[in-house]
């Protein structure tokens, strides 16, 4: 059956037959086959066709592969079980109906794909099965037994489960959505099952409609097969063995059900809240008939789950009340911390929603009283909030005041760290500043003064923190934890801290709790003495360090940061000096500070304040933003540059953004920078030198677009109205228009727009090329020079702007040619080429004639002309700004040896960016795009009464 011609006929006939009604297919094929071989082949394919319809429908899924083979037939025996028939193929293997001949009952047996489970995994599976078998509950399909058998030529593991009569929710949903009450009831049933399972330390992780059986007595959950709960969540005992997922061990990877939570897709660990996400997705689909996340391909589905918010339930189902919509939205929050935090909470909310519908409801132990309890709690909550809010309304609010604290003379601040602390009474700030020789010292600034006073004796200090009475400061220096009176004097040693310190906190009774790299939190008395652990590193969780403790107002409990090997597990926990039990609060990227009843935390540079309940170990809501662009530490330290105390004062340091546009003169003196640092690229000076067109990254979306900076007025404005990306701006010689590249149409094309943004974009060049960027617009307005990638390398092309507007290659060699710049008289082109192995700047006549002249020596890139054409600038590979004079006499071009003007401080690959500077016409001033590496420049900002005025 390998002859190509036969295959063609088979193929044609196969497809033709599919167009014929099923009954007539065989006859149709017989008539047209021509010979027996072709007929047999087509017939056998047609026979396999109906069953094959689901085959390979989900990418790289073990389940769909296993569906190809049914291992067992009626009458086969697995020990005491007699196979009666195949029920179906599940996600992990086939499921059969079987009869237990000993206990005389029918059961379901699921065979896991034989190749999936090896010896080690079988042990783990049996271990987990023991845990799951203990889950006897009406809402959970009971697991009776787990065994292994030889089936075919391999060992298979099988699970013996309760046989359930009914249909799956998936099958039911194929017929359409459910009435609201029914959907909510099923959700309640699922939630009840999850409460029980989570309480036993088991997470489902594969919750989907196909795993929910609808029976006469309500819904039941199936397939708790491969679930476990991280111990940090419940503290429940769990198998000690490594927890590889047996499914993925054998190269078969389960596909993406549309109910997978973002953390499952992005490779972070999942916990009970992952199940709640899936439950939300199931409820969404049950009510509306549509899934919350859809995609034509796996990739689209993945990005929908990771990045898109689902269409509101009410938009898809008119009968969905707002409470249910909110309930579902909370389930579907991307961040697990923003979801319902326990199945119990969700269950309560579901029952409440259901009872609002006036259905008789079987009340499970205390549902009524729990509702009352919730009502009371929220009333109390309201009162507490009122207590905080109301007095403020009656008295004139104290004004919010913020001011900057700069490093004292001859010192600078270190990179953003927690090297500052507000005193408990809010009157003073202590901070660390560093002298030029690297010596660090403490300084104290009274917030009602403008001078900072050094604390003598505090040499070598880092991470200071105050005593509760505000009279002493503790700090780490030279391998020890010390304390010193605020006024200065001899520091006293408290204890040794040999490894990198991670902050400390001083409690009311004189207990100090501190952290250090690689350790759990330790306690010591302020007077010194024994150092004892207060928390325990959890190896199973991958704990590296417990650090940055901060006491809560009661002086016993504290919050601290648990740093784990997997950054996704790093989180804030609450601990107490009375025991080493800790409770997880939320995932975090840095430490937190406590300000009265609020906790301040950093999220992507945004400092937010949230009310904190130490008893319930929870924060409420999304929080109020307090400040932006806060410097965080190195990920290793994760200090976070902010501080707070119970008084109404906070302090923080901003992080510097990625780059700054800075003016230099020829000698390298800094003349000033454009006021707004941002993530800039490819600045281009307007012909009249009053404006700069620049590409900027939008921090929120990551998109690049073009902005116009007005150098006279100091304003900035976007050039393009719509959110499409744009890059590589260039001014027209008359200053009226700007051209730029954009991939808004799918390719990378050149467009043009009026410099004031009016009139919309006109396409200039629709290219099939990629990486298209205009590099120059000739001063006579006749040509556009652009670089683009053709074949494997960049080349320079030229496009005539008049006449036929033809584009043609200028240089198209095997080397890379980039960054072409016309000379002002358009008689020469300067460009960068790497044909020698190193990027160098060359000159050629335009139109091309004669050979090329190398301008740079020892490497160079990004040439730019002075307006009179007599000087050419470029950047040397070590970041130096270079200049060479250019003399044209008759037919010869001569260039001088380039000389260094100044060091730009720019690093990086000079040929991967189009241009990192521009020069004024007279060649006297340079505008450089400098990336800002260190954050020494930002001052500390102190804010008084930060709570009172809403921000912006």
């Amino acid at each position, binding site marked *: 059956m390998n002859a190509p011609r036969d295959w063609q006929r088979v193929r044609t006939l196969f497809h033709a037959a599919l167009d014929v009604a099923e009954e007539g297919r065989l006859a149709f094929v017989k008539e047209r086959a021509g010979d027996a071989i072709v007929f047999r082949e087509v017939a056998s394919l047609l026979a396999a066709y109906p069953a094959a319809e689901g*085959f*390979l429908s989900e*990418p790289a899924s073990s389940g769909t592969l296993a569906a190809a083979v049914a291992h067992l037939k009626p009458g086969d025996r697995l020990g005491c079980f007699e196979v009666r028939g195949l029920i179906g193929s599940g996600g992990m293997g086939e499921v059969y109906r079987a009869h237990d001949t000993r206990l005389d009952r029918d059961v379901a047996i699921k065979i896991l794909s034989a190749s999936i489970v090896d010896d080690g995994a079988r042990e783990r599976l049996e271990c987990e099965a023991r845990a799951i078998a203990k889950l006897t509950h009406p809402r959970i399909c009971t697991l009776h037994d787990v065994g292994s058998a030889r089936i*075919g030529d*391999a060992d298979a593991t099988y699970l013996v489960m309760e046989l359930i009569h009914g249909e799956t929710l998936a099958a039911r949903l194929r017929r359409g959505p459910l009435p609201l009450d029914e959907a909510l009831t099923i959700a309640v049933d699922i939630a009840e099952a999850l409460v029980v399972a989570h309480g036993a330390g088991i997470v489902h992780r594969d919750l989907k409609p196909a795993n929910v059986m609808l029976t006469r007595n309500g819904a039941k959950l199936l397939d708790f097969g491969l679930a476990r709960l991280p111990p940090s969540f419940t503290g429940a005992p769990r198998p000690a063995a490594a927890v590889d*997922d047996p499914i993925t061990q054998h*190269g078969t990877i389960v596909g993406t059900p549309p109910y997978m939570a973002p953390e499952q897709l992005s490779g972070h660990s999942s916990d009970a809240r992952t199940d709640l996400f899936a439950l939300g997705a199931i409820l969404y689909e049950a009510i509306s008939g549509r899934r919350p996340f859809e995609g034509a391909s796996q990739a689209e589905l993945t990005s929908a789950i990771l990045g898109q918010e689902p269409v509101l339930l009410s938009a898809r189902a008119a009968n969905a009340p707002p409470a249910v919509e909110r309930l579902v939205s909370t389930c579907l929050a991307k961040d697990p911390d923003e979801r319902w935090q326990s199945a119990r909470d969700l269950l309560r909310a579901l029952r409440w929603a259901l009872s609002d519908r006036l259905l008789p409801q079987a009340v499970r132990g205390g549902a009524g009283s729990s509702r009352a309890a919730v009502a009371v709690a929220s009333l109390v909550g309201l009162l507490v909030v009122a207590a905080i809010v109301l007095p403020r309304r009656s008295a004139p609010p104290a004004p919010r005041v913020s001011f900057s604290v700069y490093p004292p003379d001859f010192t600078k601040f270190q990179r953003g760290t927690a090297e500052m602390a507000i005193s408990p009474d809010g009157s003073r700030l202590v901070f660390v500043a560093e002298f030029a020789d690297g010596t660090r010292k403490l300084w104290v600034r009274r917030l009602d003064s403008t001078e900072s006073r050094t604390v003598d004796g505090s040499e070598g200090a880092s991470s200071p923190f105050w005593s509760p009475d505000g009279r002493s400061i503790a700090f780490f220096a030279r391998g020890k934890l010390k304390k010193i009176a605020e006024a200065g004097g001899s520091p006293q040693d408290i204890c040794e801290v040999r490894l990198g310190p991670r902050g400390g906190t001083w409690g009311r009774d004189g207990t100090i709790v501190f952290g250090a790299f690689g350790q759990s939190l330790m306690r010591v008395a302020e007077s010194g003495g024994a150092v004892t652990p207060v928390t325990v590193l959890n190896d199973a969780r991958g704990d590296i360090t417990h650090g940055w403790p901060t006491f809560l107002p009661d002086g016993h409990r504290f919050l601290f940061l648990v740093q784990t090997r997997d950054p996704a597990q790093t989180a804030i926990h609450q601990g107490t000096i009375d025991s080493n039990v800790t409770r997880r609060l939320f995932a975090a990227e840095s430490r937190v500070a406590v300000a009265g009843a609020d906790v301040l935390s950093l999220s992507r540079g945004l400092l937010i304040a949230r009310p904190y309940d130490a008893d319930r170990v929870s924060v409420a809501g999304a929080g109020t933003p307090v400040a932006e662009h806060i410097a965080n530490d190195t990920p290793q330290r994760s200090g976070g540059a902010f501080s707070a105390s119970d008084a109404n004062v906070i302090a923080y340091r901003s992080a510097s953004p990625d780059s700054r546009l800075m003016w230099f003169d020829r000698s390298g003196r800094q003349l000033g920078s454009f006021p707004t640092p941002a993530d800039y690229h490819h600045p281009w000076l307007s012909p009249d030198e009053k404006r700069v067109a620049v590409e900027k990254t939008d921090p929120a979306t990551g998109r690049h677009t073009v902005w116009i900076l007005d150098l006279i007025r100091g304003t900035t404005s976007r050039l393009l109205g719509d959110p499409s990306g744009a890059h590589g701006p260039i001014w027209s010689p008359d200053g009226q228009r700007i051209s730029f590249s954009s991939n808004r149409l799918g390719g990378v094309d050149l467009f043009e727009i009026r410099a004031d943004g009016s009139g919309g974009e006109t396409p200039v060049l629709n290219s099939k090329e990629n990486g298209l960027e205009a590099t120059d617009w000739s001063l006579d307005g006749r040509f556009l020079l652009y670089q683009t990638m053709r074949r494997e390398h960049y080349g320079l092309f030229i496009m005539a702007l008049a006449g036929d507007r033809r584009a043609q290659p200028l240089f198209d060699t095997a080397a890379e040619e980039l960054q072409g710049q016309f000379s002002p008289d358009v008689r020469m082109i300067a460009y960068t080429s790497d044909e020698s192995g190193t990027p160098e700047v060359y000159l050629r006549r335009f139109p091309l004639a004669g050979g090329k002249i190398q301008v740079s020596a020892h490497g160079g890139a990004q040439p730019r002309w002075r307006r009179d054409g007599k000087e050419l600038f470029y950047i040397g590979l070590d970041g130096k700004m270079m200049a060479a004079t250019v003399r044209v006499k008759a037919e010869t071009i001569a260039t001088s040896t380039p000389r260094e003007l100044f060091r730009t401080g720019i690093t990086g690959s000079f040929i991967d960016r189009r241009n990192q500077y521009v020069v004024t016409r007279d060649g006297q001033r340079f505008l450089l795009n400098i990336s800002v590496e260190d954050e020494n420049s930002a001052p500390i900002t102190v804010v008084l009464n930060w709570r009172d005025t809403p921000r912006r």
Partner: protein
Amino acid sequence: MPQEAGVTRLLIAWSNGEASAAEPLMDAVYVELRRLARGYLRRERADHSLPATALVHEAYVKLVDQRRVRWQNRAQFFAIASQVMRRLLVDHARARDASKRGAAVTVSIENVDRTADGRPADILALDLALEKLARVDARQARLVELRFFGGLTVDEAAEVLDVAAITVKRDWAMARTWLYRELGGAA
């Protein structure tokens, strides 16, 4: 950043027909996918199963400068990545198989009186079957690779294979039927 520029250039070059870019591009993608896959498959706390196509998607985001490529290049990337993914999964499956061979059968909870027919269907079997299909119809085998390992849609596969979407649909119907039969699924 330099690495990103390199892969982007290779991808652009390759989609422009430069065959010599294929090898280094495959290598770069293989390294990245393997790194990603290792992280997920072997991590001690791999408490979830990550689909192959999500890995490919992640590799794409990490390796390619999306400002510079057209969406057809994206399809090309997934085409390459699907080949690489298949190779990865097969290698992985072989490694697991090799370590399992010779291990004694442990005692099962219930004695088994009889074994049933049928081969375990898994990535290795599919791989062999695909190779067999490729000898008969290369394009169909390629299509299976693109859709099953790469997760490409019908349109994207049509773009990569340079055929009409309707051809893709037909080929897909036939290829999966052929493979199903080959893997012993028919009655």
